[in-house]
């Protein structure tokens, strides 16, 4: 087991830069998730750590050694692929032990490790089957088993759950977390699914267009996103971005959303945003759960306004409501008993204590 470090890592394909200078320190035992939309460079980064792609510039270190020119087999890593990449002609046991057999480990040692890994993953009964006879979830386990028996310094996962159906994905997610808690191997995990990222990671690395947007714990990313990209990418339904500007009305600072709607900012927020130039184009970032139905006992900083709903989506435990503010589509989450109906007027409450203010041009959260 070991720590992993990336120093100004660049990957160029001909004249396209897929990864544009990444710095990342992964501590021993840590579970890191690289997340981002397709084409953001997350898989390329993982493959460079694995040694499946050459790096164009920079350094990659595993356990303190620079491994730039070390072939994959000597990096002491294990990888789980999206399509599992199980050898179709080998049984589960043979799949798991292939790497060890190539390295001429003693037979007893191989058997012990395979048995142990199979027990850990609850696939002891499947050990003599071929991959074709296994379900998606079982193949996934075997792929993980193949990684575990090698007892490597680092586990690499490349979107391992995206070929599974929704229910199984949730189940395997928990499974992966359990396994990591047991073996404690440093793990780098790539996914495009922000829920997977949030639930699995010690720290999440959000990537976009070949760069790292933000690194942080799941809660940090959710509550303190650094950029518009992170704010919009993490959380579902996504955060609303409503064009707005700041106004001084007497001594209070107020935020104006439309000609009709403007609210005074809560004191803590007012102090934080007071220094901003009033002319800047700004965006109000507000998660749907901070846009709820209005009721009698509102906290301070929660302001109400009337609107007409376009569409409502009952989800059971809540109802999502969609409406427009000067043409900007906005989503809120209301109590299913609040009486939200398609096309009906409704009074909503906006919790400005949890608001974010973004610079529209730079996308930076202020």
């Amino acid at each position: 087991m070991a720590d992993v470090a990336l120093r100004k890592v660049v990957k160029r394909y001909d004249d396209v830069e897929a990864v544009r200078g990444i710095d990342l320190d992964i501590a021993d035992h840590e579970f890191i998730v690289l997340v981002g939309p397709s084409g953001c460079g997350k898989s390329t980064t993982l493959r460079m750590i694995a040694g499946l792609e050459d790096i164009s510039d920079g350094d990659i270190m595993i356990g303190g050694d620079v491994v730039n020119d070390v072939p994959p087999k000597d990096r002491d890593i294990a990888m789980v692929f999206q399509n599992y990449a199980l050898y179709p002609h080998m049984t589960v046991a043979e799949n798991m032990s292939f790497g060890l057999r190539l390295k001429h480990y003693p037979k007893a040692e191989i058997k012990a490790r395979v048995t142990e890994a199979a027990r850990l993953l609850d696939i002891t009964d499947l050990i003599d089957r071929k991959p074709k006879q296994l379900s998606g979830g079982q193949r996934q386990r075997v792929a993980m088993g193949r990684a575990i028996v090698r007892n490597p310094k680092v586990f690499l996962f490349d979107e391992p759950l995206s070929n599974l159906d929704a229910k199984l994905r949730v189940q395997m997610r928990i499974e992966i977390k359990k396994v990591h808690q047991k073996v404690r191997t440093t793990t780098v995990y790539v996914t495009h699914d922000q829920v997977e990222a949030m639930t699995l990671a010690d720290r999440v690395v959000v990537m976009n267009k070949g760069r790292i947007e933000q690194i942080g714990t799941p809660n940090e990313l959710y509550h303190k996103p650094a950029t518009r990209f992170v704010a919009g990418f993490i959380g579902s339904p996504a955060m609303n971005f409503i064009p707005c500007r700041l106004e001084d009305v007497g001594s209070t600072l107020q935020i104006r959303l439309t000609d009709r709607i403007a609210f005074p900012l809560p004191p803590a927020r007012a102090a934080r945003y007071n220094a901003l130039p009033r002319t800047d184009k700004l965006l109000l970032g507000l998660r749907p759960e901070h846009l709820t139905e209005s009721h009698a006992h509102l906290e301070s900083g929660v302001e109400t306004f009337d609107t007409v709903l376009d569409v409502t989506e009952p989800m059971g435990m809540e109802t999502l409501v969609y409406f427009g503010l000067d043409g900007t589509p906005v989503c809120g989450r209301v109590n299913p008993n609040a009486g939200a109906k398609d096309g009906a007027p409704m009074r909503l409450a906006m919790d400005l204590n949890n608001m974010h203010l973004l610079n529209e041009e730079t996308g930076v959260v202020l």
Partner: protein
Amino acid sequence: MSTLAIDKAGPSRKIKYGSMSRDRAWALRWSYFFLVLFAIFFLTPPIYMLITSLKSSAEISAATNPWWVFHPTLSNYVELLTSNQFLRFFWNSSIVSLAVVLVTMLISVPAAFALARMKFWGSTTLATGVFLTYLIPDSLLFIPLFKMLALVQDYTGITLLNRWYVLLFIYPTLTVPFCTWIMIGYFASIPKELDEAALIDGASWLQTLTRIFIPVALPGLIAATIFAFTVSWAQFLYPLVFTTSVDQLVLPVGITTTLIKGDVFNWGQIMTGALLGAAPPLIIYAFLMDYYIAGLTAGATKG
């Protein structure tokens, strides 16, 4: 327009459905009728081979109904299968075909692996070149090859012409390009992650080929093997040109040249020989039809 359509579809739906299944039944009957006709056309020569092979020379020259055997006899088979000459042809054909299969696989499988998986300078050009080579027919090369073999013989003293083993060098020019081409297709269809997994597991390129690719692409390998064997077995022009002594001949040439003695045609024996000569590919086909067909269609569908 729309009302018209509704008129038509509405009340007559049931009738329409009935007529459709009746149409289908007729289409099916016609299909079978024509299939039987074509099957007769396609199977007449081999069946006629079988019929004639069971006749004695006397019955053949008596010019009775050619489509029927009145006095079936296995004398033709007995005679050929005890004739040293015919067994020699069979033996030569077997050795040549099996050895060519081996040579072909040893050349084309590693090459296909390199061309499918290891992008290197000129690999695309080489793959295209392999395909083009496959399109060069034997009838274009037999004359220069004949002369080349004669020259080699003159300069080195190694006798190549009129020796069956020269075919071991020549036949691969017919089998290797196509086998390489279809193996490239089969190898390319193996997911890239599989060799990456092997790479991470610590396999070298050769280990990836022998322990992952060959087992996984086994159906393709079988198809290629069948192709190489049938092509070698059926080849006629090269052995006709390069071998002349009776003890060096392979089956197709042996049967056409030795069983026809001057103008005397011993048709019972010729047909028996032809049937025995057709037997190995037919038997392989009967047991491995799916692989045979896969190999046949692979050239155009996998490229």
